[in-house]
């Protein structure tokens, strides 16, 4: 329950923004803010008990697929990437997921031109699922691998590593001990990136216009200010606010993932076990 309450301020802020864009223009006024706040409990009731989530369950499957696969592949990903030079890891970690997607799509298109194979840009195509997952996973995995390596280098020179060496443990065993201390911190870093992953999946679905919860939220957020460009995006039937259950699901997905990783951090940390 405490965890759910932690997500609510973020959801409320975006809900108020969408409510304002649906009912007003320019800077939000106090009256409108109060009306938005007053309507929020009813909206939340609809989300939790009133079936407002029903239209989004189907979308959650595809968004959950990208999110879940990226979350799972993060583990082998950072394990494999940690052998790369630190400079490359650092640069890869700085790439936003959407740019990684663009680069990967260009790479696949280039290969398809070279070897003459068909790459239809449609949701559910195995190559598209692979590219979306890689685009979500690679920058995050590079950041974790980079952090892990820095931390390992720091710990290998620490007092406890020296003590292990002095009692006659081999360098390999000492490194294993160091890894046990560094890994929980890396997992904790992954937990901190959970909301970043949710943002990334939303932007990727938006760029590809692939159906999912992320696309619903992307279209709502984009069209709410997109009216400045005079663009009719033809989205958010029933108003931008109607996508707030989708946003709730997206935040919940990230929140549950962060919660699981936090629990894993506690489980992995040898100091807490002691």
């Amino acid at each position: 329950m405490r965890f759910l309450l932690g997500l609510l301020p973020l959801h409320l802020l975006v809900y108020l923004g969408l409510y304002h864009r649906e009912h007003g223009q320019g800077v939000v006024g106090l009256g409108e803010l109060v009306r938005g706040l007053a309507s929020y409990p009813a909206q939340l009731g609809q989300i939790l008990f009133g079936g407002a989530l029903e239209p989004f369950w189907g979308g959650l499957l595809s968004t959950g697929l990208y999110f879940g696969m990226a979350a799972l592949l993060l583990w082998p990903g950072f394990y494999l990437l940690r052998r790369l030079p630190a400079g490359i890891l650092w640069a890869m970690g700085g790439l936003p997921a959407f740019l990684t997607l663009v680069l990967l799509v260009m790479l696949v298109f280039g290969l398809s031109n070279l070897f003459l194979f068909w790459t239809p840009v449609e949701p559910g195509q195995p190559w598209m699922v692979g590219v979306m997952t890689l685009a979500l996973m690679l920058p995050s995995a590079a950041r974790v691998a980079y952090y892990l390596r820095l931390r390992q280098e720091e710990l290998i020179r620490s007092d406890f590593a020296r003590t292990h060496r002095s009692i006659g443990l081999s360098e390999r065993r000492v490194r294993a001990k160091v890894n046990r201390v560094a890994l929980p911190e890396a997992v904790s870093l992954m937990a901190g990136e959970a909301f970043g992953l949710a943002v990334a999946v939303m932007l990727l679905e938006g760029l590809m216009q692939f159906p999912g919860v992320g696309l619903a939220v992307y279209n709502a957020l984009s069209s709410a200010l997109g009216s400045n460009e005079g663009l009719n995006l033809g989205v958010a039937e029933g108003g931008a606010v109607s996508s707030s259950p989708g946003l709730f699901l997206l935040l919940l997905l990230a929140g549950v993932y962060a919660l699981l990783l936090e629990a894993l951090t506690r489980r992995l940390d040898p100091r807490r076990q002691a």
Partner: protein
Amino acid sequence: MRWLLLPLLVLVLLAPTPSQGCPRQVLVKAGETVLVPPLAPGSPAAFFGTDADGRDNGCLVASGLRRSLQMGLSVLLLALPLGLVLGLGLGWRGWNVGLYGEIFVLAGLMLLAGSLYYREVLALGLAVYMARTVAVRVRTVLLEPFLEGAWAVGGGTLHILIRHVLPHLAPVVPGLLATSFGLVFLWMAELAVLGYYDQGGYFVQTGSGFETVPMRRFLPLNPDLGQLIGTARFEWLFNTEQLLLPALMLVLLTLAFSDLGRALSRHR
């Protein structure tokens, strides 16, 4: 990576100012000279190609880089005093501040304030980020044994703040500024994919005028890199370089400044 910033700054210096403008083509020379896009496809004036409206990509990105740097600097100047004061207060009180899901927070604030307050919203987000770093530093200093001694011999709040906390904070500030500057560009890139950027532009209506849905194109005026990404986001599969070039520039800026931040912190 240490020299990444230099070529970017050179590119900014070489970029045409808004008054100079990007190269255009002489369309009509009879009587009055009319200089307009479009440049012809394959024109030697546009090495990086042209956008859908015949404007030189290389020039757009170079002048966008200049404008993005100006914007980033103004955001940083707005955020700095607020971030420092907030961070000092939070650190002094021992309170925590977090900014989770910052793109959602920034998007929410931008929806409430409108795109006219783009810079102010970014500055607010950046101030919170800076405040968190400053607060951690202040808390670390406050736990030092020499400060316990200073309190014990009767040092007042102002004395502790001016004589002990601020001098320990000062060496962190250059590194923090560089890292924050880099972060602004990352936020600008991600918000741009959502279609959130600094300023508007103008519409060009094409077609015969009898269409049921008017054929209008949005052309950003003196765009920054974020706006270039924002306007290219619907057509990126067909004109990939339109999105790729400004996005790469923003990422290079982020990396260059975060690298500078690391170097300054290490130097300290």
